[in-house]
């Protein structure tokens, strides 16, 4: 009996001590949910780094309307359960006025009902189009819809008169969303998917799938995934001596991919945000200024190149800052102002929100790039 009571007291105490938290007066609290660890850490880590960097910068310049921003980041490890717990904590415990993230579509879909119920604006950094389609009152997103990237590739294929393709997608949230969009949009562009295969995020050899593709009628291969799988595929394609043109998704538009795939990366074409080609953009490009600022900053702080995943968080912070400056700092003021966002150039593209569109980007958010001599080149 005594033992049980002691244990119970212990538990309660730990819980209580966890919830004690002191808020600094005169700050605006913004919450963030990123999968800093776990399988999607390739998204969460640059997102957290970027968000922190940008908030520090805003605070260094005096904050928003004279108030400092306090950014509270929780790690969700890619797990929907943890994401929901963390969202509840941000809203009910930390009393944030808005939430940035989560990083993946799955987590975003899990957190979405919480945001709606508690009436807190949420700016997701995930790409899945179902996050904002149909439109939810409190939910926005900054990552470009996968459908836009798919359209960019399909347009190019049409131009090159290629109509039969094979797709190979990773079996996680990113890949399955891409796979869905590839299938949905194919008919519209008169493209036929003759081979549809997948690979696991931790697979180390995809020659089996590629051998099957080699045996099919496909005239091109589209691979949808994030590192390291696609690099493996590029190498396997080379090993098998497959001569078909290889397309990748924006999931690998970072120097890391070129480093991993080595020589095998040469010639691969992919849609990408403008980040990686910021220096070769024409100076008339509206995004160029913010892109170059972001890339430089990130390089300075974290010693590696900023990528467009970090860009999603950058855009989210920027949009929030903008909304708070113009609208006010209560959740509903922020939401209303976010919806009025027009023509703001960020990292991912130019944002135009409206009551019927909470995704805000057009397919011009993407450019097609080709890998040449271990560097990016714009495809005209």
């Amino acid at each position, binding site marked *: 009996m005594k033992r*049980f009571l002691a244990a119970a007291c212990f538990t309660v105490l*730990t819980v209580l001590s966890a919830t004690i938290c002191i808020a600094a007066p005169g700050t605006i609290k913004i919450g963030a949910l990123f999968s800093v660890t776990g399988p999607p850490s390739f998204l969460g880590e640059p997102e957290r780094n970027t968000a922190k960097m940008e908030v520090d910068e805003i605070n260094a310049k005096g904050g928003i309307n004279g108030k400092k921003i306090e950014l509270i980041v929780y790690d969700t490890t890619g797990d929907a359960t943890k994401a929901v717990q963390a969202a509840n904590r941000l809203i009910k415990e930390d009393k944030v006025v808005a939430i940035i993230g989560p990083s993946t579509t799955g987590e975003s879909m899990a957190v979405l009902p919480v945001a709606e119920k508690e009436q807190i604006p949420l700016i997701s950094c995930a790409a899945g189009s179902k996050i904002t389609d149909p439109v939810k009152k409190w939910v926005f997103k900054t990552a470009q819809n996968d459908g836009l990237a798919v359209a960019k590739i399909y347009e190019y294929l049409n131009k090159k008169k290629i109509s039969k393709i094979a797709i190979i997608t990773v079996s996680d949230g990113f890949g399955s969303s891409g796979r869905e969009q590839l299938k949905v949009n194919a008919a519209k562009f008169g493209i036929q998917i003759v081979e549809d295969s997948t690979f696991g995020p931790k697979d180390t050899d995809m020659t089996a799938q590629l051998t099957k593709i080699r045996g099919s009628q496909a005239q091109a291969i589209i691979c949808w995934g994030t590192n390291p799988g696609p690099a493996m595929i590029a190498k396997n394609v080379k090993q098998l001596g497959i001569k078909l043109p290889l397309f990748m998704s924006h999931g690998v538009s970072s120097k890391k991919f070129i480093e991993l795939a080595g020589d095998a990366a040469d010639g691969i074409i992919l849609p990408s945000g403008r980040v990686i080609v910021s220096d070769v953009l024409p100076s008339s490009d509206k995004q160029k200024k913010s892109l170059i600022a972001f890339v430089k900053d990130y390089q300075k702080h974290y010693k590696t190149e900023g990528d467009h995943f970090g860009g999603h968080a950058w855009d989210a912070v920027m949009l929030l800052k903008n909304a708070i400056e113009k609208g006010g700092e209560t959740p509903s003021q922020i939401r209303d102002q976010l919806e009025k966002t027009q023509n703001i150039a960020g990292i991912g593209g130019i944002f135009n929100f409206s009551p019927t569109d909470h995704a805000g980007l057009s397919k011009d958010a993407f450019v097609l790039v080709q890998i040449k001599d271990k560097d990016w080149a714009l495809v005209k």
Partner: protein
Amino acid sequence: MRFLNSEILKFILLALFILILPHVAHEGYLLNVLVFVGIHSILALALNLLLGYAGQISLGHAGFFGLGAYISGILTATYSLNPWIAMLIAASVVTLLSFAVGFPVLKLKGHYLAMATLGLGVIIYIVFNEAVDYTGGPSGLSGIPNLSIGTFSFDTDIRNYYLIWTFALIAIALSLNLVHSRIGRALRAIHDSEVAARVMGVNARLMKVQIFALSAGLSAIAGSLYAHTMTFVSPASFGFNFSVELVTMVIIGGLASIYGSLLGAALLTVLPELLRAFQDYDIIVYGLLLIIMTMFMPGGLAKGFPQAASYLRTRFGKRSSPDA
């Protein structure tokens, strides 16, 4: 009879504690954590029946939990079935399925059993990911309704808290009855010496399979509760990691201890909240905890507290007198 009374008293105290807790505790966020503590308690309890009492490891329980969640979720979100009926179907299907699979699986022992259950968990996880048309694939299944009675819907934290803890208390009461019965004794006997148990007339094989099915069925109910509370499910919550987490809850709480399961579940659910301060370091703390608990507190918290207390007392006593 004294033993019976103290058991009942303990249970009533726990029930009162749970009843009052939301009124004492911080509103809002803590309540949400306590909802998950409840779900995890049911899961730890279910696994403890198998692992702690019958001594059979399962590294695939997250799979059964997930099956419960997905069956319930799909039936209600896609086929608009009543959530209660869906929960019943989920529990029955998982119980029957695990009963059938249990016969070949529980023939295995030790690491072979660990591997087989792990394999089961992985297969179930892959199905969640790949059967996109039904499960929604890696990005999950949304639009699952809350449980409701008439027009009263369990859609707030406080309502879910009482709903889930009602289930947890029932599960605790039933488990307490079970472990103090001939079945409970037979399970522990199998754990200690399977041969001797069989000679005493315990059908070890059948008993193990039955408890495996019961454990899986209970996990499925927890899964169903989870799905209707979260209103969303995705595969990442039901992977190998979560199976290990469940085993950890049982070990840390105390093998073959019903209340220990509660402690383990509470600690492991609250711990990540505390560790948020550490961010990237929590995985290390987690691994260390698993090792240290197994090494120094094999009885878990339920037995470890008194153990540690008496250890400290003797240590302290020794120090006050000159070293002998």
